[in-house]
């Protein structure tokens, strides 16, 4: 807002008096000066009209009604008291049912509804078939299961029997293992010094040597293709034997 002085009043002062003028509390000489400034100032005149119009628009807005559940939600979130339950009608009492009917309605009926689905029946059949095949292969017979003694004393007896059997087995097998270890030691001491094996060229499994892979050419550079002599055996054969010629191809990583 430009800070101009018109009719003895600055625009800032006009701005401060504007609310009072619209509230109707401005009177007398101040009101005259105010109105004179509004008539003469190009900025403040329209401001007065717009502010008055805006206030009228806002006064046309009525209060909105809060939702009915707002108070109960506030009380529930602050004190934890849900007053809405006081306003809602009491629930209709259901006729009394026995606990068996209650269990049937709560658990059995949903389970039965799921079992009746074809895909569940198929899965159940497959699982039963796999179990029966597995038990047959393992040699388990229903008669064996029937003859199982599941008393605690019998289970404890079975446990100690199995433990004793395992201990006995390892006690029996220990001399055999010791004898085997001793024989291995003797054999190792008596065996002559092994001759060094001739150097073998590591052959590329799929390499045809005539046609190297194009892919390797892209990443590696073929730098040497030397003919070298394989290491010859020392001894009388040195002069008489033909030295084998080995073609060695080395690849160096392209840096």
């Amino acid at each position, binding site marked *: 807002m430009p800070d101009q002085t018109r009719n003895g009043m600055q625009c800032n002062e006009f*701005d*401060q008096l*504007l*609310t009072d003028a619209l509230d109707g509390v401005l009177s007398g000489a101040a009101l005259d000066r105010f109105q004179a400034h509004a008539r003469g100032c190009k900025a403040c005149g329209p*401001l007065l*009209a*717009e*502010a*008055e*119009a*805006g*206030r009228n*628009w*806002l*006064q*046309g*807005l*009525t*209060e*909105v*009604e*809060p*939702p009915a559940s*707002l*108070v109960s*939600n*506030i*009380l529930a*979130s*602050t*004190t934890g*008291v849900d*007053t809405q339950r006081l306003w809602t009608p009491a629930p209709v009492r259901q006729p009394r049912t026995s606990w068996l009917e209650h269990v049937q309605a709560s658990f059995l009926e949903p389970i039965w509804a799921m079992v009746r689905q074809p895909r569940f029946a198929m899965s159940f059949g497959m699982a039963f078939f796999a179990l029966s095949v597995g038990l047959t292969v393992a040699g388990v017979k229903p008669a064996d299961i029937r003859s199982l003694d599941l008393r605690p004393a019998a289970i404890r007896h079975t446990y100690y029997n199995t433990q004793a059997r395992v201990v006995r087995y390892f006690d029996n097998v220990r001399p055999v293992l010791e004898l085997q270890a001793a024989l291995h030691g003797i054999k190792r001491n008596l065996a002559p010094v092994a001759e060094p094996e001739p150097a073998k060229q590591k052959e590329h499994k799929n390499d045809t040597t005539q046609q190297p892979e194009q892919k390797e050419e892209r990443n590696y550079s073929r730098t040497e293709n030397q003919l070298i002599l394989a290491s010859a055996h020392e001894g009388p054969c040195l002069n008489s034997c033909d030295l084998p010629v080995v073609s060695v191809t080395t690849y160096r990583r392209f840096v």
Partner: protein
Amino acid sequence: MEDVQVVAMLVRRCIAGDAAAWEEIVQTYNRRIYNICYRFAGSSDDAQDLTQEVFIKMYRTLSSYDHTKGAFVTWVTTITRNLLVDHFRKTKQDRMTDSMDSTASDHEDAQPLSEQIPDQSAPPDAHVRSREVSETVHEALGKLSPELRESVILRDLQDMDYKEIAVVLKVPEGTVKSRINRGRAELARLLQRTYRQVM
């Protein structure tokens, strides 16, 4: 608006754990707070959430209220206003009314805010009480910058006096008056574009 002694007694009872006193406070002020939140936030859902937040904060800080420092309604409105500011910062729905009639330079295809309100051919006098007009004014109010919006809401919709508004907004009374003037003028300019024939 409120009897200071009565409210102080109500607050004391509430601090002492009287649930009925707290319910009375909720019953008395929920409508006012909801309306402030609704006019500021713009939507009923946000207003409900914000009103609940206001009361939760009130419930936790009720012992800090000192009736010698100001009216309870001013204290409540200050809490509401602070939460609205926080909410506004979170939602980033800043709209500057200074640029209301000018197209934002960084968005070439953006329309002036005054043109975003649907044009309606009916004159305002004929529909001033109608729901459509109320919604249009409510939408226009939402286009104001938060400083101007809160000022005109507290003055023109909540009938608070300038001193109380100055306390709530923590600005001088002169600034409050200036914001109210600018807020009203911007709102009128906005709606003037909507109802060109009459204004």
